């Protein structure tokens, strides 16, 4: 490592792992390994494979603990001018994080994509780490802007994110202006809702400003290709920080088995975070809504677990969440009918019927 800036970026990335681990701690459901209880949501193309790898909650939680603690100590070690050890810790942290996160689709977000991408590129270009991170920032921020446009968010924020990285290639003061604009933008977003995104992206932008040279390294270009491909594949799906405005979501779940009917309603908006209610009584006429605090059971089977929907509001925008839920309910409960519908800003987005 040739200067303090490189070490500082390494520390930011290590602390990014720490941020992820503290975020995971709040997701208690992640550690209850029983998928049948609707505690976690495996990604669609990894489901079977991931289920076989997902150890019990004890080890997952232990890994998460090590992830947070060692990454914090690694960042402190970099500040203390220890160099080589923290890099191994960063590699370990990124690996553990990718492993844990592959177990629950709800945890995936723009921030995690940003952090994993920058961390990978940082490690892949040992001689030009700062330049590699700068290129990574350009790609991720650009894709972030593109993602918002694809999601129908035609906002100045999206356009700035899409175009600003290109200005880094321009001569004169333009690159600095572009960086300054992005810093302002992310700080403002951070104050509103996305502090962890800003906590990583802002120091990285500042620390890599004006870095000369091109990234080198045998692993750098393949790593960049993977990062870009992942970003492109995730277009329209990456949640959280990549979408500037949080929509209002409402979902309605109706399950019928014999003479029993369950009806649940999920509502989420930036002003009023996830509210889950159940309709009780005679659903045809005289019924009322009550809040759902705990899992709803039919015998030993869990019909509905509010934590499944509540732990990550951004995931409520994902049709896959409802598809997975409906499929699991159908498999477990063998009901006569399962119907799930969800609306985004009042517009019906999807309907699953089994």
């Amino acid at each position, binding site marked *: 490592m040739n200067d303090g800036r490189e070490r500082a970026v390494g520390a*930011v990335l290590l602390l990014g792992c720490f941020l992820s*681990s503290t975020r995971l701690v709040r997701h*208690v459901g992640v550690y209850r390994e029983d998928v049948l209880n609707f505690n976690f949501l495996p990604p669609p193309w990894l489901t079977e494979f991931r289920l076989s790898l997902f150890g019990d909650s004890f080890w997952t939680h232990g890994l998460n603990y090590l992830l947070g603690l060692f990454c914090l*100590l690694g*960042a402190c070690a970099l500040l*203390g001018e220890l160099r080589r050890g923290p890099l191994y810790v960063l590699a370990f942290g990124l690996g553990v994080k990718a492993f844990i996160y592959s177990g629950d689709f709800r945890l995936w977000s723009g921030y995690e994509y940003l952090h994993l991408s920058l961390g990978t590129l940082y490690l892949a270009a040992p001689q030009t780490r700062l330049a590699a991170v700068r290129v990574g920032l350009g790609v991720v921020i650009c894709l972030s802007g593109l993602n918002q446009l694809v999601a129908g968010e035609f906002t100045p924020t999206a356009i700035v994110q899409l175009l600003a990285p290109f200005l880094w290639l321009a001569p004169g003061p333009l690159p600095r202006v572009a960086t300054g604009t992005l810093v302002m933008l992310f700080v403002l977003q951070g104050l509103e809702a996305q502090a962890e995104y800003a906590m990583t992206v*802002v120091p990285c932008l500042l620390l890599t400003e004006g870095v000369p040279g091109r990234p080198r390294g045998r692993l750098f270009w393949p790593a960049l290709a993977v990062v870009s491909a992942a970003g492109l594949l995730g277009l329209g799906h990456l949640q959280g920080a990549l979408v500037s405005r949080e929509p209002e979501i409402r979902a309605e779940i109706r399950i019928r088995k014999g003479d029993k009917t369950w009806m649940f309603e999920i509502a989420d908006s930036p002003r009023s975070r996830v509210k889950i209610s159940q309709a009780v009584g005679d659903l045809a006429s005289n019924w009322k809504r009550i*809040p759902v605090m705990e899992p709803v059971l039919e015998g030993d089977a869990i019909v509905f677990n509010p934590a499944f929907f509540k732990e990550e509001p951004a995931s409520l925008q994902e049709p896959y969440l409802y598809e997975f839920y409906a499929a699991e309910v159908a498999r477990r409960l063998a009901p006569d009918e399962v119907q799930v519908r969800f609306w985004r800003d009042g517009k019906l987005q999807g309907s699953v019927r089994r």
Partner: protein
Amino acid sequence: MAVARLRALLAVEEIEHDLRLRVLLGSLLFYFHVSFRLWGDSHFMTLSAAGRYLCSSVPWWFLDPPFFWSFSPEFTRGLFHACDILAMLGFVWCFFQCFGPLLLLGALFWVKFLFYISDFMLLANYDHMHLFFVLMFLISRSRLFFMRAGLGVWYILSGLVKLTPSWLQGAYFNSIPGKFPLIPKDDWVVTAMCQLVILMELVGPLCWFSRYRWLRWFSLASFIGFHLYSGVVVGFRYPNLMLPVVLCLFWKADKPFSEGFRCGLRDVPSYLLLALALWGGTVSWWIPGDARLTGEGRYFGAFMYDAERRVQFEAELTRGDERVVINVERSWQEPINFGTFVWKTKCVGRIYRGGQLESEQRLAGPFMVNGVAIFNSLVFQKSNARQIGDPYLYYRWAKQVCGVYFPDRLSLKLIQQLDGDPTEHVVLDIPDFQELNPTYHPLQRNSWIHDE
């Protein structure tokens, strides 16, 4: 010129020339993130910020009403996010210089301190320690010496607070299903571990002053092992603060810790702070009664896990022909994983009119009676094992509810059980709160709080 004087006053050069202090500065700065992140995300802060509307915040006795009552929840959360970002930028700043980050440390200290002392629900031992370490770091010269002394004092206080049957007889952990993770579940092993922790905390710091190097390193290894393991029991916040601090203070420590001892005029504030910590940590010992039940004097010093509790609370408000009964029942806590406990808190509200039950509801938020929020169950449901048993929580609620609902009569009854023991302790039994009109004295025995 002014900058140079400020640099000299804060002894910035000392940090610049010692990597250990630089790392310590960075880790203390970053720990602000841990606090503000938790506060910003938790229900408490949102509720507290809107407390005057929801009857939900629990102002602490020396800053009432809290200064942030005039802030909107959005502003408060934005402020916390700003402090989050500043904590990270401060850490990064430490790679390049120390003066700026030191000033930032002072600024963040004040923000955290003002919020912290404003709301009973925010009080946590880790934050006590963090604020103490930060203040010591800010005011000291010969920082390495005073930080080590502060660490030693805090360990001793942590040992002192555990001198109760809950720890000495291992009753607390023996009563929790699963006991200590990763070690044998026999009662005697758990009891021995509890006693060893107390011994380590009381005697360990004294070893740092020994001229025997092996003893100093043995003490260090014990504390590091303890902190690594403590994360398994209490979660992230404690090891995240302590491990960087301990490692920095022991790094390259090849001489006894009395090295750097000084006693000049400039060091008086540091000694005063140490004395204040020692005094604060013993307040609960001077007040008669069992602090595990009464909670009196507890928050002036270390107040870590002191007991496992089950709590039953009943309040009855009468106004005209309207009678409102509120019941809170807290179960014993159960560990579900490393550092994660669950408990069940059942809050039920009943309204009677003319002697007839008009409505009964299980509460999951504010309980509205005639358009007035008289109770917010979230505060009680989210309270940790210590807060839920503290009579102060119920006293504050009673004060608030009298101010918004104006009942003719309010009666309170709080019953606690400790450490799996079936014995019920009646801590509060006040038939008429307004008539008694109790006042909370933080530094002395309150006659209306019992420890029977």
